[in-house]
């Protein structure tokens, strides 16, 4: 953070804290900057993205700076376990991701996995290799009966349309 440009008043977005709360990130103002979260965070240990700094930037409304920090929380919830103020920093990160998806756009893996779920009902594709493996170990090549799978996929697409997820992520749902 020391190498970052000085903070100017215009950077501070007064509505940011409220927005974080709306997306379920909790009240960032209860954080007293003790740094316990950073001390137990596997990502903070390996990168410059320290949880405590992110929370401080949220408190100050430094929205642009926060939203440009990478999508790198493992959601291990150790921070929550160690927070003496009762905050759940991992849930704050989840809220920030909601804002990133809406204002910057979803990262590529989110688009790809959403596609898989909408097309197959599963997060990962079923490759020819795996189908072969399934047969070799005595399972049906296709894990799900086609009729059930088609119905499930249809349900998923209906849900995604109803919540507007397809538009939010920018995926096209088949019929």
């Amino acid at each position, binding site marked *: 953070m020391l190498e970052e440009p000085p903070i100017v008043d215009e950077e501070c977005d007064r509505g940011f804290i409220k927005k974080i709360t709306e997306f*379920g990130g909790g009240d960032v103002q209860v954080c007293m900057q003790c740094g316990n979260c950073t001390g137990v965070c596997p990502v903070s240990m390996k990168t410059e993205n320290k949880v405590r700094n992110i929370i401080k930037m949220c408190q100050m409304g430094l929205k642009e700076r926060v939203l440009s920090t990478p999508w790198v929380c493992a959601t291990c919830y150790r921070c929550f376990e160690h927070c003496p103020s009762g905050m759940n920093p991992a849930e704050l990160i989840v809220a920030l991701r909601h804002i990133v*998806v809406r204002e910057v756009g*979803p*990262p590529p893996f989110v688009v790809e996995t959403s596609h898989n779920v909408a097309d197959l009902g599963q997060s990962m594709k079923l490759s020819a290799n795996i189908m072969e493996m399934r047969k070799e170990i005595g399972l049906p090549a296709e*894990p799900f009966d086609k009729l059930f799978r088609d119905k*499930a996929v249809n349900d998923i697409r209906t*849900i995604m349309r109803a919540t507007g997820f397809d538009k939010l992520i920018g995926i096209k749902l088949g019929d």
Partner: protein
Amino acid sequence: MIPNRYPGIEQSIRKVIEGLGYGEKFADLPQATCCPVPGVFYSSDKSTWLALAARNLCLAQDRRLEMVTLCNGCFASLLKATECLSKPTTMGEVNKVLREICMKYTGVPRISPEGRRVLEPVKVRHFIDVLYNDVGVDAIRSAVVRPLGGVKVAVHYGCHYLRPTETGAIEDPGDPHMVDDIMAALGAESVDYQSKLDCCGAGGGVRSHVSELAAAISKDKYDHIESAGADCIVTPCPFCLLQMDTVQERFEGRKIPVLHAAQIIALAMGADRRMLGLDFHKVPVDGVLSKTRGG
């Protein structure tokens, strides 16, 4: 993820359930889908996440079943969904969406001790909880036909086993023992190591989004497990398995095989090892297999 990436885990749990004589107590949910994966859906749109999870929960609810998962991620995702759905307003909003697919989440009716009809959330359980608390370690020990004497196991619990939700922990997240106890019942020795309760690094989309960072986090764990002299890593989560198994091609030194808990239990219970999908792991599992008596 299990059926499409690690079908050996699927086959293993089928063998374990059958071998323990619990075949009739379990049923498949053929319409079930991805939980959905929290690093993608819970992170980007909670209302879609909750509706998709509620759809899966309805499948169990309508058949009056508990939902058992073989994955820490599914466990946390579905358990958190039942907690969210306990709020009547949230349940109402979700049901507006579910109406479009002719489903409704209400919870499961039960008769309270006072004789009243109450609705309880669909019960979401991790299979380790079921094995430990319903089946019991003694029953597992009795079912072992190929004891794992001499096998040193490094147990990796994984974050969402330890901390699925703010209040839903199965056991003390600071001092878990269920998987260790099950390993002991199989005859294996669970070795302690420094970062035992730490994250594998893959969760929350880190592996998919910044794989080098996930690998850097895994490296610490790998180093500690390596110096503890473990023969293999055992985890109750397929995603941690994927990470700890595939990440090792980046590291110098001894390769340590990684097994899902269901696989090693099935192995000890005498299942044909070719049926457990072990040959398809990146790090060969042969070393562990040759240590098992009669294996």
